[in-house]
């Protein structure tokens, strides 16, 4: 059985999201009932590479580096296709940068960033562990959100 989703004129298609993480990706992109464009979330579809995957299609959505970094944290295998006039004009594989700026609050309740108005910074140690630049604690990728 295959599912066909209508093409979008402009926006983004996020492919190769680990199965089950599609909803989280939508949350990171602030997609809720108030979003005006067309939205498609396909879950647990067959993938040659990963067995199963999720896909998110968003009409009218634009990307910036911060969103890119956020998606990289929760869906490191994702590919982002940028669509203009029904054509893929750019295809980018997400990658976790060396320095994550303002993509997650610090999970340490005693970190200064949870009390003062300051952007959080996490240093990427090896794509799995991240050190808070301020409190110096190390967190696993899943702890950052």
């Amino acid at each position, binding site marked *: 059985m295959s599912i066909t989703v209508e093409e979008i004129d402009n926006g983004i298609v996020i492919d190769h999201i680990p199965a089950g993480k599609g909803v989280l990706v939508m949350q990171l992109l602030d997609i809720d009932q108030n979003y005006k464009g067309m939205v498609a979330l396909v879950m647990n579809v067959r993938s040659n590479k990963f067995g199963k995957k999720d896909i998110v299609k968003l009409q009218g959505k634009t990307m910036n580096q911060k969103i890119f970094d956020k998606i990289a944290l929760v869906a490191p295998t994702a590919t982002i296709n940028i669509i203009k006039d029904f054509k893929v004009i750019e295809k980018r594989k997400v990658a976790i940068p060396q320095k994550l700026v303002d993509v997650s609050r610090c999970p340490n309740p005693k970190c200064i960033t949870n009390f003062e108005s300051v952007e959080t910074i996490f240093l990427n140690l090896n794509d799995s562990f991240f050190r808070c630049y301020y*409190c*110096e604690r190390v967190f696993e990728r899943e702890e950052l959100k």
Partner: protein
Amino acid sequence: MRKKSLISIRDLDKRDIENYLKLAERYENHFTKEKIGKVLATLFFEPSTRTNLSFQTSAKRLGIDTLNWNVQFSSTQKGESFEDTVKIVSGYADILVIRHPLEGAARFASEVQDKPVINAGDGANQHPTQTLLDLYTIKKYKQKIENVNITLLGDLKYARAMKSLIYGLAMFGANITLVSPKGLEMDSYVIREVKEKFSANIIEQNVIDLSGTDVLYLCRIQKERFSDPYEAEKIQKEFRVNMDYLKKAKDDLIIMHPLPKVDEVPKEVDKLKNAIYFSQAKNGVPVRMAVISDLLGLGD
């Protein structure tokens, strides 16, 4: 080697530390009578005796005036933010020494204004000048740090002095044994980091055996970081050094402690020649003179 601020022991490499230790040695008997027209401010949001007083003494011996800010009598009580307080004080002083219960506070302070900041302890995170004076003391008594067998004993989870120290010891190739009550072990990421970075030789155990130890480094249970003070006290009583343990130790063992000590060290230990924690505390002065001098560029 001039640094902008000293926030974490991670900001220093081996050469930086060696330079600080050499400079501290030169400052052992240094006393400047003339004022040099600089001001050091101490902003302590948590209690302190040794760190605060030794910073003030260090400044005075370098001819630097001090501003002593007290959280109880400050605008913090009126709700002023930490950021605003730091900005205000930086307008009056040339260098800021900050102790704060929140982790990362000193790093944050170093970024919201232009004056150098020395971290005098941020929550359970770092206390870099304590580490420098600890390394200085070990070197003074043992002539080296490399291959010295050191046992870190006590609350290794919340004591920032321990978290800073293990990094410095590993950098210099000491053999480290960690002994702590259950639940107060050193964070695994700290151990993993020093093993990966310095191939550190670290043994973790839960029994006190001092037979092969050259340096015993103790610390108290950080009661103020426990939600249940009774629980903290109970652990403290169960986990103290006694004379029986010390009888099995080497004759030239040195016993260090960042102080204040509470129940973890019986009074009779103070009288032993092995107990050097009071001279260790005194070493804070030349070491902090070296750091202040470097950050203010006094030797330039």
